[in-house]
């Protein structure tokens, strides 16, 4: 077994988001979350539903088991039986997320995608985030446009939950008294100081931050030989 790569630790960290999720739709956005969700379904979360990226629900062998066009997908979101992992151009200490624009909304310095489904996602089903390049440009004190709603703005939202944020440096959650972001684990090869240096706000952390867990031999074989034999995961995290 060759050395575990950073991309593979990221896959494991993303897969763990869907542990104990039960029979819900996993909506991974991005390559590594997709590999992670498929790994979770093939191992510890067999009841997950996954799409082909378009309008079909497909099983691990590719067999079509259902139809989920956008209109039904949006209904499923509001029904809550889904855990989505979105990207984030910016994310702040309470988990507010931005994918709309950088700068003043009225006349942005950089127009991005728009809010997409981030508002409906964050108010209705668990929403995690994936950041392939952890930096102070992404982990900011305050996001320019709140698309995904954070804990400091969701006091009255009955179904709001941000289980985790995964980056190429570590795993983060909001298990603190004021629900601010906490460093839950660092990937092997990464130091806590390195994470703090790359984060634009003060990050909560315990005295001894654990390492992200090792993949099992079976999980590595599934990632390398079955789910992502072409190695597309290294396009998102090249180290």
């Amino acid at each position: 077994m060759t050395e575990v790569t950073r991309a593979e630790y990221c896959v494991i960290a993303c897969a763990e988001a869907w542990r104990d999720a039960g029979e819900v739709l996993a909506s991974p956005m991005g390559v590594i979350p997709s590999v992670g969700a498929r790994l979770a379904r093939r191992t510890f979360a067999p009841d997950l539903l996954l799409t082909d990226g378009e309008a079909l629900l497909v099983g691990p062998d590719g067999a079509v088991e259902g139809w989920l066009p956008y209109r039904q997908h949006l209904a499923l979101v509001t029904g809550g039986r889904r855990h989505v992992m979105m990207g984030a151009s910016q994310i702040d200490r309470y988990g507010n997320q931005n994918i709309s624009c950088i700068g003043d909304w009225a006349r942005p310095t950089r127009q991005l995608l728009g809010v997409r489904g981030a508002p409906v996602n964050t108010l209705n089903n668990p929403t995690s985030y994936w950041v392939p390049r952890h930096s102070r440009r992404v982990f900011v004190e305050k996001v320019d446009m709140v698309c995904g709603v954070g804990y400091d703005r969701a006091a009255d939202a009955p179904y709001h939950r941000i289980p985790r944020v995964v980056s190429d440096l570590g795993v983060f959650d909001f298990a603190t008294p004021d629900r601010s972001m906490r460093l839950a684990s660092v990937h092997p090869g990464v130091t806590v100081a390195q994470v703090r240096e790359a984060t634009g706000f003060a990050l909560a952390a315990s005295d001894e931050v654990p390492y992200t867990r090792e993949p099992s031999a079976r999980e590595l074989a599934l990632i390398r030989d079955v789910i992502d034999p072409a190695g597309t995961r290294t396009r998102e995290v090249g180290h």
Partner: protein
Amino acid sequence: MSDKTMSADEVAGRLADGMTLGIGGWGSRRKPMALVRALLRSQVTDLTVVSYGGPDVGMLVAAGRVRRLVVPFVTLDSIPLEPHFRAARERGAVELTEIDEAMFMWGLRAAANRLPFLPVRAGIGSDVLRVNPGLRTVTSPYDDGETFVAVPALRVDAALVHVNRADRLGDGQYLGPDPYFDDLFCEAADAAYVSCERIVDTAELTKDAAPQTLLVKRHTVTGVVEAPNGAHFTSCAPDYGRDEAFQKTYATTPWPQFAERYLGGDEQAYRSAARVGVGEGT
């Protein structure tokens, strides 16, 4: 019964400056691009465009025809950021009503149901409320007492959609995996124009396809346009996929140059310049 067939240019001729226009499809998928091209050949301007935005939005914005956009996103899918929308936003050239994907759908549903609004659990806590100061909330009158965004009806003056098949009466059929929201756009519109890959006899529609594929109903349709490759360069499954090479040309060519090269003539000239259909089966 009335034959509603007309040309794309006739559709454009029925649109007027200042109208609110709903455009079907999703991102760079089954967009009524032949109708958009006809609109670009006309002088119609000062539009409010309501769309799950893709190159339809990009082209109309680049050509300076849009005053206001009502969108949850604008994307080319395989190219995440629409370059013309982006440029227009960054130079402050277009007004924007930016709402969530689900809020957008509920807005169309409200319009289709002749309701002033529908409550939606989305938008609360987000900056969608900050950037849309006109949006109101509504509190449940029942014991839960939850507060929702009251999404106003997205009523449009005219809708443009593209489907795989239609008959001359306006019955429209999709044959791909996703209907998107084209039926809702037609129901939310005062006048709806449906372009299609092929006009067929009514009986032909269900000869090889289930009746559930009959998406658009004729009582919601004003005009039917036969426009083969009419969604080009967006996808129109199963008739054809997205023309990725041409989309890349669109995204990387300066607009005046692109418009001159591809949009200076009629639809036939476009197809010839863009080499649409070259290399396809019979």
